[in-house]
């Protein structure tokens, strides 16, 4: 008889475990969920600087031509598929004027940390509504990003 009662308990336990409602408190935060939670309205987000490792960048007034040339090579492999050098949009916006429009740290942060920025930055969110393709993370090193920035400056006429 004791054995029978144990069987009954087992059956009940199984039933309870099979009920999805029982586990609703277990829902945990995934990496994706936590970024979503901070989207739209993180009070600490600085739309001028963006989010990432760069801040307060002071750039020389003149162009480093060799650096810009390296940036151009990276542009052709990793960026040119979607960005023209004019102001015309292809997949993403054209690059003309971008280095004047944004602070250098914003650009550097965006191209090295695009996912976090797209989730938070008001302008990037507006762009996403137009382009509908999130800018891919092209795995740029800090040096790559700096060279690209120099190429953007060259494209904007810095000499």
């Amino acid at each position: 008889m004791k054995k029978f009662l144990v069987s009954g308990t087992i059956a009940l336990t199984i039933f309870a475990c099979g009920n999805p409602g029982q586990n609703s408190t277990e829902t945990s935060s995934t990496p994706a969920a936590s970024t979503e939670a901070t989207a739209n309205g993180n009070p600490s987000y600085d739309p001028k600087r963006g989010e990432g490792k760069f801040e307060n960048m002071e750039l020389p007034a003149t162009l480093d031509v060799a650096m810009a040339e390296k940036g151009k090579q990276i542009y052709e492999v990793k960026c040119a598929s979607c960005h023209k050098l004019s102001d015309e949009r292809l997949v993403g916006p054209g690059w003309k004027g971008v280095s004047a429009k944004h602070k250098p740290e914003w650009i550097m942060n965006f191209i090295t940390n695009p996912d976090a920025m797209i989730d938070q930055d008001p302008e990037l969110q507006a762009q996403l509504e137009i382009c509908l393709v999130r800018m891919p993370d092209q795995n740029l090193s800090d040096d790559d990003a700096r060279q690209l920035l120099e190429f953007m400056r060259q494209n904007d006429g810095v000499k």
Partner: protein
Amino acid sequence: MKLAQSTLAALAIATLLGGMNACKPKSAGSAVSGNAAEKVYVPPGKYDEFYNFVSGGFSGQLSVYGLPSGRLLRVIPVFSVDPEKGWGFSEETKPMLNTSHGFVPWDDLHHVNMSQTNGEIDGRWVFVNGNNTPRVARVDLKTFRTAEILELPNSAGNHSSPFITENTEYVVAGTRFSVPLDNVSGDVPIDTYKKNFKGTVSFISVDKDNGQMDIAFQIETPGVNFDLSHAGKGPSHGWFFFSCYNTEQAYTLQEVNASKNDKDFIMAVNWKKAEEYLKAGKGKKVQVKYAHNTYSDENHSATSEIRKEVTVLSSSELEGLCYFIPCPKSPHGCDVDPTGEYIVGSGKLAALIPVFSFTKMLKAIEDKAYEGDYGGIPVIKYEAALHGEVQKPGLGPLHTEFDGKGNAITSMFVSSELVKWNIQSLQVVDRVPTYYSVGHLMIPGGDSRKPDAKYVIAYNKITKDRYLPTGPELSQSAQLYDITGDKMQLILDFPTIGEPHYAQAVRAEKIRDNSLKIFKIEDNKHPYAAKGEKETKVVREGNKVHVYLTEIRSHLTPDNIEGIRVGDEVYFHVTNLEQDWDIPHGFAIKGADNGELLVMPGETSTLKWVPNRVGIFPMYCTDFCSALHQEMSGYIRVSPAGSNVPIKWGTGETAPEDNTSGQ
């Protein structure tokens, strides 16, 4: 009161029914108790504790599960083509399936062994064997892809493989089916087995830095069937143990004729001695033919080389190389405990499990305690090497794994159970049913020096009522048991792919952080890579046309191609320009008679297409990549053979226009 009575009666009936169920322990729903769900529940977004690499049997694939959830994480094509991944369909991967018999896109993938350092799983590579057209493959755990496949000459049916030594010095292979060796004529009557058929075991060296495999030597043996094997470890490092059956040398109705002898053998091989003989030039160079295929992550391509020579050592001529230990009734599993002292032979037709002692075996060799020889190999007296026998463990013992706490767990095929026993005392301490007819079993690290004995999994041969019916065939069944307590507790049932032979598991952290996310586009050395849209082009060379094409969210470049003719061999070399994790792009063309491509970020893959009719053919990305994925497509214009429509290509502004010539 009356109400109370009837309630009691109802309860009694209910419990009686429950009790009746409990009396049938082998029904689908029984035998789970207590907190099983809690133990296997991995909440959404959380990672599993272990990676579990499971043989895909006759699917030729290796599957990867998370434990304890039993979630399927990945299926890796090894000896098989895989249309999902373009494996065996792209020009780059086809050479991986080359053999001396030509392109063999299938095999029977049996056993799984992970690379070890100091007797511990190191998380670098998984080795698997192909049983049918004898091969051994190495899967790289940075990419979870097959990196190398080595064919074995002088062999038929590679079953006792790919077990490894404790520092991955060697991976072994052995003939399940003895045959005349490759350098003599095999055109002999089958009933000359005894005279003409030979066995071999192969020792494949593994480069400790890059994993590259090479057949260091083969040992020629009398014609028998080698079944399973395991390396010595610790004090027995330097030895390898192979079970063999069919010492009757039967070649027909083996079911009966290979089951006559009371004892077959475990063959002990002193591979350190073999190395000495090899150095002393005692090996015989034999002319054979076998394929060695490697895949490079630098040029994203496989190469297949046919090798022509192998070194063979003779087991009968070279003293001290091999010994036979009698083992009851067609031994199957041949497992060495974590201390390296005990060798467990599982005679699949025996009602006991013999456990041999390495120390006693060495003593027996020293004392020449032999009962005779078999094909020139000394046969050690059974008792002289025996530690003891586990009496009446169950029916049909097949394989044994170890918990590192002095216990062994053996799978019992005929009586469908796992049986735990103490290695020293040889007493059975626990048993638990499996559903049904368990073959292999696996404890994480359970064949290494450092078992991580939280779970044991039974990989079963028969499924029956475990899952919803799916027609005449059901997926295979595996059961996960918690073995942290005194009693083994069933906590999960999960389906597997193909027939799960052996498996391995390791803590996730040994692999997780080394997993590659992208291939760096700047390091891509594929000769037809287009690193950036600037390098895209279409080049005609006679009737061959090479298309250098790029993919990025969400367009193809070029996406308009003209000037292709019926009968051309068109090679689409597709480079994925993405550099972000988990953004592969696919590539497919209407009517292509092979498959699709699935190109990883930074990688180049090639699809060959021979258009057989005039028309406009769409091509598109098959892997949903962005909100504009549906737009990620293009057109190819195919003109008649001999047409003079010029080659033109482009995307957007550069797309070919009517009445203009060239770009």
